[in-house]
């Protein structure tokens, strides 16, 4: 196991360097003079020169790349052109909101998908199976932002029971406040703000996980050990959960891990729809302000977290299924 983990960690290093290089070259994809594009046609010569200095654009490209990687190694992602503060401090400020949103979205996705996937597999070709697969197909085909808009129209505009934008107090902080004061208002307010964006974000993952749980369960339920368990008189639900679902977990863990990474990407859209102050909204605002160091920093941070999650999923997969270590 240790050899496998070390091998995977070593393979992770070139990927990290590759991600950094790709993010570095994003700035150089800007057509023409990046400084002129970022500051606009009205910028003075001094301003342009200052920006070139700040971004290191007046140096040869390989020097720029080495400096970029060196700074990155020290946790320096540059300075925001628009806000004049370190990019890393902006990311630290906005990242918790995104993680909170992604975590709740994943919880919602799992609550929906696991029972639905199991029921679909156990009752294959029944109306329950057809209905759940129909909704799974719809969930996969529905754009995230449209789902968000429909929920706003339903729950905020028509029913007026949930807020359509913004974030309440951070969830963990509100739980602390509620525990201190005994007043449920704080937690309820946080959850009310979280519910619509988290549901929006979780639906697509729920659809994909439902399909995966169903197909994994269908494979497992055909196995001999299931028939043996049934023959021994083990009760139906116990066979499904203990013998069936436990063995179907291996592919499910993989897709859950990968989906968590995808939630970070999807959060960009959800945060824009619900004005959620996370890293996704920071990226979109930075793009509209042409604040490229912030865009680069956020893209790099999300990609690093995404790659790290993939690494953890690989290792977890190897722990659950030791056969994979030999591959």
């Amino acid at each position, binding site marked *: 196991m240790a050899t496998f983990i070390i091998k995977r960690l070593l393979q992770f290093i070139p990927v990290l360097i*590759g991600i950094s290089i790709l993010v570095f070259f994003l700035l150089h994809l800007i057509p023409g003079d990046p400084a002129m594009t970022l500051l606009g046609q009205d910028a003075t010569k001094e301003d342009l020169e200052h920006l070139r200095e700040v971004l290191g654009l007046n140096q040869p490209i390989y020097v720029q790349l080495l400096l970029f990687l060196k700074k990155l190694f020290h946790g320096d992602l540059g300075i925001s052109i628009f806000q004049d503060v370190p990019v890393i401090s902006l990311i630290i400020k906005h990242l918790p909101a995104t993680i909170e949103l992604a975590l709740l979205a994943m919880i919602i996705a799992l609550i929906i998908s696991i029972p639905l996937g199991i029921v679909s597999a156990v009752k294959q070709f029944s109306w329950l199976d057809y209905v759940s697969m129909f909704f799974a197909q719809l969930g996969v085909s*529905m754009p995230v932002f*449209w789902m968000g*808009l*429909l929920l706003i129209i339903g729950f905020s505009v028509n029913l007026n029971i949930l807020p359509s934008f913004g974030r309440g107090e951070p969830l963990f902080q509100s739980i602390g406040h509620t525990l201190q004061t005994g007043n449920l208002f704080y937690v309820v307010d946080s959850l009310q703000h979280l519910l619509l964006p988290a549901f929006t974000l979780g639906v697509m993952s729920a659809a994909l996980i439902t399909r995966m749980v169903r197909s994994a369960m269908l494979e497992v339920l055909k196995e001999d050990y299931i028939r043996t368990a049934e023959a021994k008189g083990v009760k139906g639900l116990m066979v499904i959960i203990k013998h069936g679902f436990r063995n179907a977990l291996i592919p499910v863990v993989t897709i859950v891990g990968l989906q968590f990474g995808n939630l970070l*990407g999807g959060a960009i859209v959800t945060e824009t729809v619900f004005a959620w102050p996370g890293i996704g909204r920071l990226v979109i605002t930075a793009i509209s302000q042409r604040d490229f160091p912030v865009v680069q920093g956020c893209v790099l941070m999300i990609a690093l977290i995404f790659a790290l999650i993939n690494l953890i999923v690989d290792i977890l997969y190897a722990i659950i299924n030791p056969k994979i270590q030999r591959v």
Partner: protein
Amino acid sequence: MELSKQVQIEKKTAKQSKRGFQVKEFFYFITQSKSVLIGGAFVLIVVICALFAPLIATHDPYQMNMADRLLKPMEKGHLLGTDQYGRDLFTRIIFGARVSLEVGIVSVGLAMVIGVTLGLISGYYGGWLDTIIMRFVDIVLSFPVLLLAIALVAALGPGIENVILALGFVYWTNYARIVRANVLAIKEEEYIQAAKTIGSNDFRIIFFNILPNCLAPVVVVATLGLGVAIVSEATLSFLGLGIQPPQSSWGWTLAFGMKFIREAPHLSIYPGLAIMFTVLGFNLLGDGIRDLTDSKLKRN
């Protein structure tokens, strides 16, 4: 002379009957799956809308009429109402199908050309070339796809060409991986060894012997990829990074509809429905083709 004429006629007849068989086989093939039939019908409707948009549309897609702004569906002869500039929403959605299909088809085509070519090279030659290509695939796959597309369009600037470039660059990795895996299996087959023995060059072997045998999974990925590309374009346009006004795009119409969500929710409902209908069509079609090709492979 008579004999050669007879041979020519026989050849022609054989060719025609073979073509007849292929058409019959194709129709038999698609009727075997409900997914293919339903998905195909959805896609066909969208394609017809895109091709015959000027005939189907009831108004001019760019004609503004501020007196008729934000009309509700069925008001003043506007089937789905009007937008904030008084333009007919039904017409805008019909014309939007053109943009969505154009971006979808061209970006998937681009991704396919890049991915299939690199997959063929990587799988056939192996060695350091394979290592470099596959490590690059790993790096691209380390980004959430939407994030990478957003970052690329942010750098290149908004507009239809840049959206196509960004989506083509983001999605080529799927094709490269699948084709490489297939090439690794196919290149060990006897007929490839035979082709090498009779002196066929690498280009001929790769493109005439190996490529046709890798196409089935590529078609499945491309069909599913069309749906993904259409959603991605709509998402980029929704974020203000994709198609720019006055061109009609479903994502862009939705983004503007959001500003009038209280007084004109229809602006946020119908373009989304169009996106979902199209993507559902491609997903069902792709799933159906995959199931059919899988079962055909199993039978063989």
